[in-house]
């Protein structure tokens, strides 16, 4: 879905890994956080592209919007990935964690490698887009219906075994996946950044509901301090 967002990109800037908070109709009270997948800026008006899966009432409403509909969108929110245009990254995405990684791929213009995990072949998304923007794209599916049969962390281990020169591993997906990827990256001595999910209220850091525990015993907030954190900071055992 492409959102026309006026001058949002030009005035606020967008980094890969940031998200928007979208009001999904009158029936639901809370906004829904969705990662920014791609963006463009131009005098005629900036755009954001979001890619999402229908999970419940809110995303179902959003998916039903006709072209030309006006939506109430707050953003860009959060801190994106710390990433250099000149860097070379190993991008790891799982399920609905895949879309934000495309932003990273575009940002680094073809030099990065992507490892993408899906439940099955018919759940894959954005493969062509990644193909165009990455040096290499590796696929894993839980059921083996496409690519590697298993989880992405095995592919990450294999890739880092082959080549430790990546500037960093950047990952987005469910917490257990992030935990395994972080472990593999740490073992390989490659820095790792992870984009976390948590249920949100305000989306801007005021209500403190989106807390996630840090290794140093403090808590941080996914919406404001994240969604991207250094894998080292995170308390993976909480």
């Amino acid at each position, binding site marked *: 879905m492409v959102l026309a967002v006026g001058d949002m990109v030009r005035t606020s800037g967008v980094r890969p890994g940031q998200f928007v908070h979208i009001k999904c109709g009158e029936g639901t*009270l809370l906004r829904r956080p969705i990662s920014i997948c791609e963006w463009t800026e131009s005098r005629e008006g900036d755009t954001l592209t979001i890619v999402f899966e229908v999970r419940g009432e809110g995303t179902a409403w959003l998916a039903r919007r006709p072209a030309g509909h006006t939506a109430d969108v707050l953003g860009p929110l959060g801190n994106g990935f710390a990433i250099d245009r000149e860097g070379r990254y190993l991008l790891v995405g799982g399920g609905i964690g895949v879309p934000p990684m495309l932003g990273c791929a575009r940002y680094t213009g073809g030099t990065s490698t992507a490892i993408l995990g899906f439940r099955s072949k018919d759940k894959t998304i954005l493969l062509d887009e990644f193909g165009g923007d990455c040096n290499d794209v590796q696929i894993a599916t839980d059921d083996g219906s496409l690519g590697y049969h298993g989880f992405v962390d095995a592919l990450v281990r294999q890739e880092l075994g082959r080549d430790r020169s990546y500037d960093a591993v950047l990952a987005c997906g469910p917490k257990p996946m992030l935990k395994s990827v972080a472990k593999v990256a740490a073992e390989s001595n490659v820095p790792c950044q992870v984009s976390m999910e948590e249920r949100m*209220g305000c989306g801007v850091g005021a209500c403190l*509901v989106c807390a996630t525990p840090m290794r140093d015993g403090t808590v941080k907030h996914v919406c404001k301090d994240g969604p991207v954190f250094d894998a080292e900071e995170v308390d993976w055992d909480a």
Partner: protein
Amino acid sequence: MLDMTVKLAGVALKDPVVVASGTFGFGREYSQFYDLGELGGICAKGLTLHPRNGNPAPRIAETPMGILNSVGLENPGVDAFIAEELPFLRQFDTKVIANISGNTPEEYGIMCEKLSAAGVDMIEVNISCPNVKAGGMAYGTRPDLAAEVTETAKKNAGNVPVMVKLSPNVTDITEIAKAAEGAGADALSLINTIRGMRIDVDTRRPVLKMNTGGLSGPAVLPVAVRMVWEVSQAVSLPILGMGGVAKGEDAAQLMLAGATAVAVGTAMFADPYAPLKVRDGLADIAERQGLSAVSELTGGAKPW
């Protein structure tokens, strides 16, 4: 010209719309959306004597026109508030109301002393947080304990007015209100959240990691209006009304029921500008009714 000012326990607010504790942090985030000086007042995030991490996530669940939260008083502690947050809030032309929760009456006393010395405009004594196991909830459901906490707070708050925040999770809220009044409270605020639960039918787990949490948002508005009305008839203290306010009409209802001012909380999660819109909507209603001061709404409901 409509006079929007109100006086809450002697504190002059430029308009009757403040933001509710715990929904506005310490103001830093929403200050990027608008000048905090546009607000009648700010109830800061609930403080405890020592820093707290709060409860594990998920801490929020959505319900029909409401939300459940179980934040559990995550906060940096009263000293850090005074050192780091209060100076920030003090920059704005608005009233700062500190909100405190203690495990013992003594803790409330110590916090009041510190906050009074640091200079806040009002102290809101939360005896009703449903998200902490010790203390909080029991104080709000037993008149004797409510009175004890109020008394200790008053003794230590110096000249700073003390507002006691009541729990709706009681059989008769007027009993607690009277106990707080008897113990010297300068104002009352209500309602805090109503205990509720949501279960994910597929995982069979409560959505909140704490199992239950506090219900807020439009769903609770009619309960808030009823309780403000009951309390305003039972005591003669000024009331800060809250619970589900999302538009001017909601605020007007609470004021007609007896509130001197109102707080907006959950509505901000849908719309960061909600407090300003509530203020403007309230002004529209007062103007349409030809009032010269918005304060004329307070207690104006005529029962049948």
